[in-house]
């Protein structure tokens, strides 16, 4: 109990007729780098704002650092938020921006000076005290926004897609930097994103959300390898998706797609046998081009290259299977096939343990 930085119980949020959050229960442990992951409109930002006190919940309770904060307004909560657009005060220089929260707490000027200096060092921004926000690059503004939030030494740092306004290279750099920062200062971070790569690569724990509900909570590995349903499986990574049902014949159970493709399914993936409809998900990295050598995977199909796309390190292939006409996609290295052209016959295969099966619709 006392180990939790944030606890949300039966949280509901209603905006007029619209239900933003249905019934959210979450526990964020101290020191977690906790991700709220979901598509836009799933309520993740609303949830973050509720933790920060910028929105109040319709029902339910919020406990932060062991204290009930349900009805405490944002300015009395020891949480700090970093917004997507950073929102540095445009009329204040870097020093005054970072000092803002400390001044609101009426810290002494000596304390403010030493804290700001320390934070600037932490973010490798020493010497920028006098700069105005418009004189900073995107990455620098992002760092100052983080420093401003950390200045009040919050119990929890809330981050709302802080990297989405940066270009790809800078974003990747900042991901690494944020993980380093989290490790160095050991604070609890709650981070909202729709980017599953960001979540998988940075989180200690992920809560996957969908239309106002938390669907699954787990470590990145748990979420990726054992998604709880087809939604999570598809959201967390790329996936080939086959709709169909399980069929048992001669003491053998297999998955048959609507178009008649029969798939061998691993024992642990057969829990949805009873469902009328099932969906089978196979990640592209588990699909291989099989050239007649070594052991063949359980599921092997003849097909033709329907389309391909050059992606630099790898080439993505879409293979249309002769048997059912369904298309499966996979990534191969250029060296795996001597020639890539549309219509070329190939064999694709994947093991039965890589077929993730869920209840379908």
């Amino acid at each position, binding site marked *: 109990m006392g180990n939790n930085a944030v606890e949300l119980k039966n949280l509901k949020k209603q905006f007029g007729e619209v239900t933003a959050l249905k019934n959210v229960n979450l526990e964020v442990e101290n020191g977690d780098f906790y991700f709220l992951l979901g598509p836009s409109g799933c309520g993740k930002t609303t949830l973050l704002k509720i933790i920060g006190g910028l929105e109040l919940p319709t029902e339910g309770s919020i406990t932060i650092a062991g204290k009930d904060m349900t009805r405490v307004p944002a*300015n009395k909560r020891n949480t700090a938020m970093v917004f997507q657009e950073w929102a540095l005060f445009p009329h204040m220089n870097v020093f005054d921006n970072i000092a*803002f929260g400390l001044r609101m707490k009426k810290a002494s000027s000596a304390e403010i000076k030493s804290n700001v200096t320390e934070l600037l060092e932490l973010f490798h921004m020493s010497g920028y005290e006098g700069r105005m926000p418009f004189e900073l690059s995107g990455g620098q503004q992002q760092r100052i926004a983080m420093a401003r939030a950390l200045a009040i030494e919050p119990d929890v740092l809330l981050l709302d897609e802080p990297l989405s306004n940066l270009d790809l290279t800078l974003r990747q750099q900042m991901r690494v930097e944020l993980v380093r920062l989290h490790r160095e200062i050991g604070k609890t971070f709650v981070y909202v994103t729709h980017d599953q790569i960001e979540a998988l690569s940075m989180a200690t724990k992920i809560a996957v959300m969908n239309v106002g509900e938390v669907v699954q909570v787990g470590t990145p590995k748990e979420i990726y390898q054992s998604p709880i349903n087809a939604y999570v499986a598809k959201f967390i990574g790329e996936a080939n998706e086959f709709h169909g049902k399980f069929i048992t014949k001669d003491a053998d159970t297999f998955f048959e797609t609507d178009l008649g493709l029969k798939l061998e399914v691993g024992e642990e993936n057969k829990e949805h046998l009873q469902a009328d409809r099932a969906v089978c998900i196979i990640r592209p990295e588990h699909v291989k081009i099989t050239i007649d050598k070594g052991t063949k995977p359980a599921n092997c199909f003849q097909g033709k290259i329907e389309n391909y796309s050059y992606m630099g390190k790898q080439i993505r292939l879409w293979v249309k299977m002769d048997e059912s006409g369904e298309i499966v996609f996979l990534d191969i290295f250029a060296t795996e096939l001597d020639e890539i052209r549309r219509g070329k016959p190939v064999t694709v295969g994947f093991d039965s343990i890589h077929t993730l099966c869920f209840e379908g619709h």
Partner: protein
Amino acid sequence: MKYLVPAIPLVLFVIVFFLLPQITMVRFSLGEGLTFGKIKYVFTMNNYVKFFTDPFYLRVLLNSFLLGTAVAIVTIPFGYVVAYALWKSKGMKRKILYICILFPLFTNLVVRLYGWRIMLSPAGPISWFFQAVGIADQNVNMLFNWPAIVLGLFSECAPYYVLILFSILTLINPRYLDVAYDLGATTMKAFIKVTWPLSLPGVVAGGILTYIWSFGAYATPTILGQPKHWTLAVHAERQILSIRDWPYGSAMGIIILVITLLIMYAQSRLFKGAQTFQ
């Protein structure tokens, strides 16, 4: 070059309807006024010297400045409250507020001023109200004094001031306020530290407009005031049309124009860097 072609009508318009009349005025103002409104075209600064050495007109000039200041002092805080309310309001409430602010602009200025004459007259509704609630025991005349003129000018300038300020307020990212609250600011602190400094360009721009408008006011002092309240603009007109000293009146007109331009120049210098805030 071809980008300039669309600008030709506008440039011609400005030349014909603004620049040429102004040049004519400058030319008049450098001439010598003769009887029956005739002008002797010489090059003399006499009209300007006469103006700046005449204590009466210096007093008028000072009064015009004071009037502009008084109207700005009244308009800035009251208009701020209205613009702020408009900014914070949503939906139907905002629409209604908007209409209330814009509505006066649909009515002719002179008509509105005569409306004030009825409102402020001894037999008017305000006088009646004061008697009804017992503040006054006889008819009160609130016309033909400085407060009446300031009130009239306030009612003219306030809509423009509110709209200018409102447009600046809408440029303030509401996230700034979220951040301020999130970092522990009270509503008051957030206003003082964030909203107010960021809205300052609007306060200044709207305030300057109010000031210039009142400084150059013509109709309001004539309708709501007595000759002792006349501004420089009224005197310029009287010089030209009543006294028929075109050069002297023109010189006064040019003085008003130059002062107005100086104020606007000062404003643009003052807030040179300010626009980058938004």
